[in-house]
């Protein structure tokens, strides 16, 4: 059994996964509302909360897996990228847990976790495939040939898609985190009313969402008082633009790479329009689409423990001096 620990952003996560990829437990202590009044994650607040929660979350994950610490064969932990102070809480805890038992440790790239989340569970995806990962922290498309690695085909040059949703929601007077609220409001609106740009920067598969956010800002300002009445249409039109870009890049990647399987990861996979549009587009083109349970799309430790199955573990004591890395 692999015990996974993930503390790269604002969720304190621990999970138990077996070697076949069965998720035995997947516990997340979310800090969402703690950061609400700051309009974004405050690193020092996140780090403090991780330390308060991490032991209880690990114990809970073991308990739900009906296992004790002695049943753990390998410890897996996110070593980056993410908020450095936050990463170091999970990493310190994981290293000490492993060292105390002389267990091997696997340092996992957070993004590799997202990319391989569809390999968990009853019907795991088989490489090769294209993966679209979109969350509040990252947005990229990757090609996966082997389970142990991925090749990034394109990434956002500025904001992440989830960030674009959060910032858009704020411009429309919705709370933080705004993605789900924007999604709900958009369902009452008409996506055809406002024409927002569909930015596709460069010749490759990169993303850019900051200009889209700016055009929403101008629209809201130009509409003045009328913006309040047009809120649902603004939300629907803005959301449609973000989703169109994500879908377009995913389809281009599939075409360019001549692949017929698409996996989706990241918290933005919860967006109802994205799910519907991807399902439609993939059905039209005969592409197999994999969107794992939301608990495996948002930040979680099961995907970290899952990815660890395919990586070489560091035997004790080779990982004692392991450090976290903030950047990819």
């Amino acid at each position, binding site marked *: 059994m692999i015990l996974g620990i993930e503390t790269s952003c604002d969720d304190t996560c621990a999970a138990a996964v077996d070697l076949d990829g069965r998720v035995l437990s997947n516990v997340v202590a979310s800090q969402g509302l703690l950061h609400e009044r700051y309009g974004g994650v405050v690193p020092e607040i996140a780090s403090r909360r991780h330390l308060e929660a991490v032991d*209880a979350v690990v114990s809970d994950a073991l308990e739900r897996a009906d296992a004790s610490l002695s049943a753990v064969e390998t410890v897996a932990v996110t070593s980056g990228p993410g908020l450095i102070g936050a990463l170091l809480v999970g990493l310190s805890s994981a290293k000490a847990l492993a060292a105390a038992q002389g267990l091997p440790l696997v340092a996992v790239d957070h993004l590799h976790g997202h990319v391989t989340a569809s390999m968990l569970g009853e019907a795991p995806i088989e490489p090769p495939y294209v993966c679209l990962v979109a969350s509040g922290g990252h947005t990229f498309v990757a090609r996966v040939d082997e389970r142990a690695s991925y090749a990034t085909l394109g990434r956002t040059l500025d904001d992440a898609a989830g960030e674009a949703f959060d910032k858009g929601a704020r411009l429309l007077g919705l709370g933080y985190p705004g993605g789900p609220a924007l999604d709900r409001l958009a369902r009452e609106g008409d996506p055809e009313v406002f024409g927002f740009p569909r930015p596709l920067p460069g010749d490759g598969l990169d993303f850019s969402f900051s200009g889209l956010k700016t055009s929403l800002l101008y629209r809201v300002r130009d509409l003045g008082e009328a913006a309040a009445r047009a809120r649902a249409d603004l939300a629907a039109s803005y959301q449609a633009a973000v989703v169109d870009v994500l879908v377009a890049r995913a389809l281009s990647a599939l075409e360019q790479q001549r692949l017929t399987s698409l996996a989706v990861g990241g918290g933005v996979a919860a967006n109802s329009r994205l799910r519907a549009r991807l399902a439609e587009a993939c059905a039209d083109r005969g592409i197999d689409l994999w969107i794992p349970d939301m608990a495996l799309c948002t930040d979680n430790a099961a995907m970290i423990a899952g990815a660890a199955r395919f990586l070489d573990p560091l035997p004790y004591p080779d990982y004692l001096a392991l450090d976290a890395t903030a950047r990819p």
Partner: protein
Amino acid sequence: MNVLGFDTSTTGTSVCALRADGTASEVAPERAGPDRRPRHAQELLPAIERTRAEAGLEWPDVDAIAVGRGPGTFTGLRIGIATARALAHARAIPLRPVVSLAALAAGLDARLALALTDARRGQVYAALYEHGRERWAPFAATPEDLVERLRTLDAAPVAVGDGSLRCRDLLEEAGVPVAPDQSELHVVRALHICKLASAVPPTSPEAIVPLYLRAPDAKPAR
């Protein structure tokens, strides 16, 4: 009691395995250095395993884990405390938190010991001990405010710690002697964390959090 203790409240990493017979294996930075780049994540566990091996202690021989809970660098303290809690959890060893400034003062042979560490942003963390007993609980202050408060004392303390190096002139002007710059008295030594731990009751690991003394800087991340 065999104690394994460590402190990560300053830029240095201190680790000690203190056996019941009084023999100690210790790893400590040579001198205090507020400008040193902290490397707690890389240094702490290797030093723990090294001192434990040097002291000839297997995990079942360790009767207590002692950890410095600050005040000090936030990230450093979290690395130390997360490590201590996980080790205690995994090996079912009682955990005893020690105030890092008390360990710093414990190195000094003086009636009044003023322990000062660098708190950055123009401040120091300070605590005053009289024959080892806490007289001023830890607080953060500018050197100027600290000197103001020192005037209320009936006798002059001796100051130690990287914080005292930062404001040596002010302290000496106020009649407070500071140990020489190169003195190892300025280092928070884990040996003293271990020694002080015997006076601290075991604490539930999950209840141990850093002595932050400061609210987080609440600027949005992005």
